[in-house]
């Protein structure tokens, strides 16, 4: 079995489907869910980039025994940041959606016609 196919494949599938859901979604929350799925896929892709065959997690709990073969810690640190940024974007988007629901009475983008879509 090809590990690359599983991890890269599912990460990229999530990204693709995320964009697809965001583009074709008719409900604003559905669009946000699409962006969320896209972000999850991207994070998965970045962490899979950092994997090194046979590597262990970059935590040396048996110090001073340092294993030389560890996975790349930098993508993990970057993904930590990306996850938090994703939830921040989501919260902001939901606030806008809730106000839209209150002002327009609907969350269906086909019915939001204040500005030209």
């Amino acid at each position, binding site marked *: 079995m090809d590990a690359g196919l599983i991890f890269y494949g599912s990460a990229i599938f999530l990204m693709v489907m995320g964009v697809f859901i965001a583009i074709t979604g008719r409900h604003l929350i559905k669009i946000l869910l699409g962006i969320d799925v896209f972000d999850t896929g991207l994070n998965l892709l970045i962490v899979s980039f950092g994997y090194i*065959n046979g590597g262990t997690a970059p935590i040396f709990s048996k110090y001073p025994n340092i294993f030389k073969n*560890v996975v790349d810690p*930098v993508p993990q640190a970057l993904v930590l940041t990306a996850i938090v*940024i994703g939830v*921040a974007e989501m919260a902001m988007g939901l606030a806008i959606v809730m106000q839209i629901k*209150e002002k327009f009475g609907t969350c269906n983008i086909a019915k939001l016609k204040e500005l030209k879509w």
Partner: protein
Amino acid sequence: MIRRLIALLVSLYLGYILYSFVYVHFPFGERPLRGVAAHYVENGIKEEGATNIVTSIVTLYRGFDTLGEVTVLFLAATGLGLILAGMKREEEEKPEPTLIMETVTKYLFPLVLLFGSYIFIHGHLTPGGGFPAGVVIATGYFMMFIAQRSFTPSEYLLSATESFAGTLYVIVGLLGLALAFSFLDNVMPLGIPNRVFSAGIIPVIYIIIGFKVGSEMTGILLHLKEA
């Protein structure tokens, strides 16, 4: 329907391009550890004293990013409050929580808080750290909102904690600037690796982040609940 199908095919095709690109240039698991990553793995413990390398990258090597990350969360909490302010509140019938729920959550709540603080205090030794810890604490509050009839944390206190923790984070960074001419420098003694009191300012930063994230997330949930 046809347009959706075309959109699906186009996005799948783009995904296929991305996949084949990635597969050719970065084959899974075969990239050697090099560049800055190799430096972090080899010298991380010596330089910063934390046995969890990811933690030392997050809080010190790339600590400036983490300050920005905390800012993003702060931004989300304030922006959410700003946008939601002035919304009509719908008074609706809330189902009464059962006695079992109420009692169990009352006793579970301190444990959740304890678990959260365990995570951020041991951030430099074990996986976890300030962000998940803060979220665990916020989840504890979330549980209390749902299960208790009259539980509302003081917004005033939340906002004060958030703001105070944020300023403290910047002050810790400025301390590095004052003592070692470099923002966010690890100015405290490193201690012996693998102990709780080690790794210089990393535990301090994670405790601050834990409090800050906890209060921000609780604030977000509170705003959403009351909207």
